[in-house]
């Protein structure tokens, strides 16, 4: 896990060194003269050896000093303050929604396999999986924001103003991210349960007088849930990526907007920082998925 993280941080750092675009040119704009550029380069430490700068940046990162933003003229941690919370709240909410929607739905569909409810949902599932989250966000803005007036599009509320309002505004963006993912997880859980239903132990469970529901609840579920746990943990990466785009749709002041603005401003310390933080979250979640799988199923051993 650590190796992967180090590798990502190195890649994130190097990526910004080999590019043709020079932040100094962008910062100076029309004031550009070779002398000023050299002075600014020295001030920002850009004239030092790449490896030295990487190690410098890495030690700073580990000790909590995230560097100084080029365009905002303050520390990266100050720029990011509050933004991470918005993205984290949105991603977490979407993730919980995925679980809350897909687990009961997947189990219900498997329980009533082949009935009308199941057939309708299986067909609809394919469509839901095909909807891009940001288009769903635009649809929600139109239906719930403009026609039904359940929320004010673009009128996001800061957590300091009203915590309830903050989470209330996040419901629709979170749903927009969650629904396509929930469709995938539902499908996976349903087919995982149905796969398990072919196993011998299921026949044994039936022969002891269990109903179909009893078999699923008491025997099948704990086996069927394993691949789903891994998948659900891994969806968090996509959800974070999705939230960065959906933040744009709903004008949410999160990391996504900051990232896009910083990319435009060639504010690389901010971009690097966001990339590495998101990478850390993703890698950590994958690791957690392994640990959880192992806890539920002792047969799986971490390699």
């Amino acid at each position, binding site marked *: 896990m650590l190796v992967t993280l180090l590798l*990502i941080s190195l890649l994130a750092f190097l990526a910004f060194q080999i590019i043709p675009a020079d932040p100094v040119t962008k910062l100076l704009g029309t004031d550009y003269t070779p002398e000023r550029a050299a002075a600014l380069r020295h001030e920002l430490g850009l004239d030092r050896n790449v490896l030295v700068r990487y190690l410098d940046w890495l030690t700073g990162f580990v000790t909590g000093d995230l560097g100084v933003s080029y365009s905002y003229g303050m520390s990266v941690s100050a720029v990011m303050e509050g933004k991470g919370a918005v993205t984290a709240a949105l991603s977490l909410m979407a993730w919980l929604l995925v679980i809350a929607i897909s687990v009961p739905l997947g189990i219900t569909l498997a329980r009533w396999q082949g009935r009308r409810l199941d057939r309708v949902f299986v067909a609809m599932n394919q469509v839901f999986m095909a909807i891009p989250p940001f288009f769903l966000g635009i649809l929600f803005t139109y239906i719930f924001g403009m026609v039904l007036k359940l929320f004010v599009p673009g009128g996001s509320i800061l957590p300091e103003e009203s915590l309830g309002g903050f989470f209330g505004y996040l419901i629709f963006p979170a749903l927009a991210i969650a629904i396509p993912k929930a469709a995938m997880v539902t499908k996976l859980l349903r087919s995982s349960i149905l796969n398990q239903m072919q196993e011998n132990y299921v026949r044994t469970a039936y022969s002891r007088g269990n109903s179909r529901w009893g078999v699923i609840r008491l025997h099948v579920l704990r086996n069927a849930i394993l691949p789903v746990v891994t998948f659900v943990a891994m969806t968090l990466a996509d959800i974070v990526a999705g939230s960065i*785009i959906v933040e744009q749709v709903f004008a949410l002041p999160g990391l996504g907007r900051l990232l896009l603005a910083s990319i435009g401003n060639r504010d690389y310390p901010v971009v690097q920082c966001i990339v590495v933080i998101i990478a850390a979250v993703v890698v950590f979640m994958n690791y957690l998925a392994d640990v959880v799988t192992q806890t539920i199923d002792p047969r799986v051993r971490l390699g």
Partner: protein
Amino acid sequence: MKLGRNKNFTAGAVITAFMLIVILVGMVWTPYDPNAMDGAAKRLAPCLTHLLGTDNFGRDILSRVIEGAGATFLIAAATVAIGLAAGLIIGGLTGYYGGWLDEVVMRLNDAVAAFPSILLALVLIALMEPGRTSIILALGVLFVPSFARIVRTEVARQKSLDYVASAKLMGAGDMRVLFAHILPNIVPVLLPSVAIGFNNAVLAEASMSYLGVGVQPPDASLGRMLNEAQGYLLTAPWYALSAGAAIILLILGFGLLSEGLGGQSDA
């Protein structure tokens, strides 16, 4: 494989064929010039002369959707082609020869694959200039790891099979064994992944263009149209709906195809 009786495959084939025909026809003929503005016909609701209505400049939305779908399709196809070609070479060589290089490449692969591809593409494009070529390059590079991994696993599995041994006995060289004998055998495994990769590319292109770092105006692309349409959601909702529906049809078609081919569309 009895593809004819496979409902998913049939539905996917019908939708994809429909989109392909529309795109192909759109290359030579669209109802109106996609970029022709008409000041007298701004934000018209769908009607007989403009089947999907017009946008804020009086441009025919149907024509724009057709052109945009074509652009999105070409970008996605080019992306998959790059990812697949590089993935075949890298995955094929590492899977066939193994060794320390295999270890290193797969480690690198893991690091890249652990990351949301849209996010990485965003950063990569930021390093270049926004536009069609950058988006193809950035997405193509990002698709290499997943293809390389699939190819590597399959090649490593196939190389110990008898037919490879007999090909070698008959004097075939490594490259011939790898690309003439093993490659055709991994195509069935590869096809669903190609369909899924295509969908991810469509989604990524649409997202990027929506964010404004993909296809630049005046070029049409479905994501770009959604970006514009969002501003006119209240007065011209059919604008966003048409572009969104086209994206969904593209993704749905290939999703069903991959499902029908036996892949899992949850990748």
